[in-house]
């Protein structure tokens, strides 16, 4: 018998998590210049297309097939093409159709790949990105999802029927919804890829302003909305754990937004909209691994720390000179570490995960498990991504040439412009105003309305 409540919730969760990737496209798209917003958004949409196909063909099997050894990899042939998963095999006691879980996990794979694209804004060939996305998902994400998300199963007599991954089972680190597999993984990959591709022209000299902050805020809103499916859905049931995760997801994001704004107000003198939106995402990242393990007050603490730390961490790229364009490292790697390691400090046995952290008298036991899981994923992801990136760079080339980068990657790579800026009806070829103002100092705020009124006089 299918448990209809659970099934309804998981299919709903999967659907709202899918919306996170277009939401991410808006979040990232608003942060780049008008001449490269389409390419930025297409990297997310490319991941939506490609990873959904790979997931069905063999990704699910690598992640959730029976372990082939040491908890590193699922059997790629067990569910090849989702073979055998269409039949209703839920038990008498009630359960979830296999396909509901397949779908829910598919959208995790998609957004993890899409997250990386923020590190290489404005300068990657679209074809090279697509090759990277497929290879990276296959070699890095699918196996790491197996480490973290695939739990060992036993039947009623205690006989093991399915062997899962090492982080979830042997190590017993708590990563409820993917602080390691999704965020540390994407953050480390973003850092590696930013290093392989190198800086954008003018990085650190011509600072590049976001071209549309309202898009960024709409994107952050969609991400927050989808994240309830991401975290509360990771209970894989419509139950108490899901409800706790939901509330923690709400409050951690709120606290992180406040934390980020506070740092900005103290450091720069202004609380910015970009900071508010970024803080929300930083808090969501931090609560992802921890939402089942902390109390709502613990979630506030984790969120505030994540918001404040990430607001400081986004400045590291200027100090160390890596062009992580949209701060995948500063938000996802740092936020993921805060959340994953934070479990070791503020987890409470009163929460559904049932473990005590250092601050709740649990000693350092859980903390070292969290640290081993976090750094294993970080190092693996960084090294493998660096190699994949380097191979693509030296064979097909990863970067567009200088002229295309300066003119704008949208027209060069996709033969499109996001906006028609021409006001005299002269046609839009060449990208209008967007292209010539490459990183230049330009401000248009406030003149359009008054001039329009004056012009009609």
């Amino acid at each position, binding site marked *: 018998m299918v448990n209809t409540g659970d099934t309804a919730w998981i299919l709903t969760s999967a659907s709202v998590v899918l919306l996170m990737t277009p939401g991410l496209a808006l979040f990232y798209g608003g942060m780049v210049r008008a001449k490269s917003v389409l390419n930025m958004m297409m990297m997310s949409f490319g991941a939506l297309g490609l990873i959904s196909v790979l997931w069905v063909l063999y990704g699910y099997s690598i992640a959730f097939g029976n372990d082939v050894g040491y908890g590193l990899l699922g059997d790629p042939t067990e569910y090849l093409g989702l073979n055998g998963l269409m039949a209703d095999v839920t038990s008498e006691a009630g359960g979830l159709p296999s396909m509901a879980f397949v779908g829910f996990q598919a959208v995790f794979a998609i957004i993890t790949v899409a997250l990386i694209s923020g590190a290489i804004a404005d300068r990657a060939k679209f074809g090279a990105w697509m090759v990277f996305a497929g290879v990276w998902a296959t070699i890095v994400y699918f196996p790491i999802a197996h480490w973290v998300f695939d739990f060992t199963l036993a039947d009623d007599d205690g006989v093991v029927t399915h062997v899962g991954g090492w982080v979830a089972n042997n190590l017993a680190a708590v990563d409820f919804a993917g602080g390691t597999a999704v965020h540390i993984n994407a953050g480390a990959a973003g850092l590696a890829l930013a290093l392989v591709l190198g800086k954008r022209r003018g990085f650190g000299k011509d*600072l590049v*302003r*976001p071209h549309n902050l309202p898009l960024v805020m709409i994107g952050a809103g969609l991400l927050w909305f989808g994240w309830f499916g991401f975290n509360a859905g990771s209970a894989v049931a419509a139950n108490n754990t899901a409800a706790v995760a939901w509330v923690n997801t709400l409050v951690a994001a709120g606290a992180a937004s406040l934390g980020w704004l506070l740092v*900005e107000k103290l*450091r*720069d003198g*202004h609380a*910015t909209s*970009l*900071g508010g939106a*970024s803080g929300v995402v930083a808090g969501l990242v931090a609560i992802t691994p921890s939402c089942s393990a902390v109390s709502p007050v613990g979630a506030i603490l984790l969120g505030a720390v994540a918001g404040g730390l990430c*607001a*400081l961490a*986004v*400045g590291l790229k*200027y100090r160390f000179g890596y062009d992580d364009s949209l*701060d995948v490292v*500063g938000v996802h790697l740092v936020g993921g570490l805060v959340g994953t390691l934070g479990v070791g400090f503020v987890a409470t046995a009163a929460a559904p995960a049932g473990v005590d952290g250092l601050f709740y008298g649990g000693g350092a036991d859980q903390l070292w498990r969290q640290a081993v899981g976090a750094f294993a994923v970080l190092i693996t992801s960084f090294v493998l991504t660096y190699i994949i990136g380097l191979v693509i760079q030296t064979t097909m080339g990863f970067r567009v040439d200088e002229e295309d980068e300066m003119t704008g990657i949208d027209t060069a790579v996709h033969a499109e412009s996001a906006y028609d800026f021409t006001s005299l009806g002269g046609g839009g070829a060449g990208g209008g105003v967007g292209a010539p103002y490459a990183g230049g*100092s*330009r*401000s*248009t*705020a*406030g*003149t*359009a309305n*008054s*001039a329009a*009124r*004056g*012009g009609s*006089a």
Partner: protein
Amino acid sequence: MRLVTAIVKPFKLDDVKLALETVGVAGLTVSEVQGFGRQKGHTEVYRGAEYQVDFVPKVRIEVLVDDADSFRVTDVIVEAARTGSIGDGKVWVTEVEDVVRVRTGERGTDAL
């Protein structure tokens, strides 16, 4: 004839236009422009990274007037556009050799 050119803060455009109408100015031209004066642009901050915006948006108003009216028109613009803070703009006057009304071919002051 003279051309009075004024660079003013965009939000003062309506005030200037109204003031010019009250002294009988029959037409003017407005354009959006950017530049800087003593105030030297402004600073914006994105995720902690400071960004110097060199050019400030302004509105340029151009009015063709008879020689006798140029001082009065200039004064009216200055009075209407002034806020007293930095960045209020400038007004200047130049000589114009000839003016033609396109529709009728009238020349000189008749074309104003």
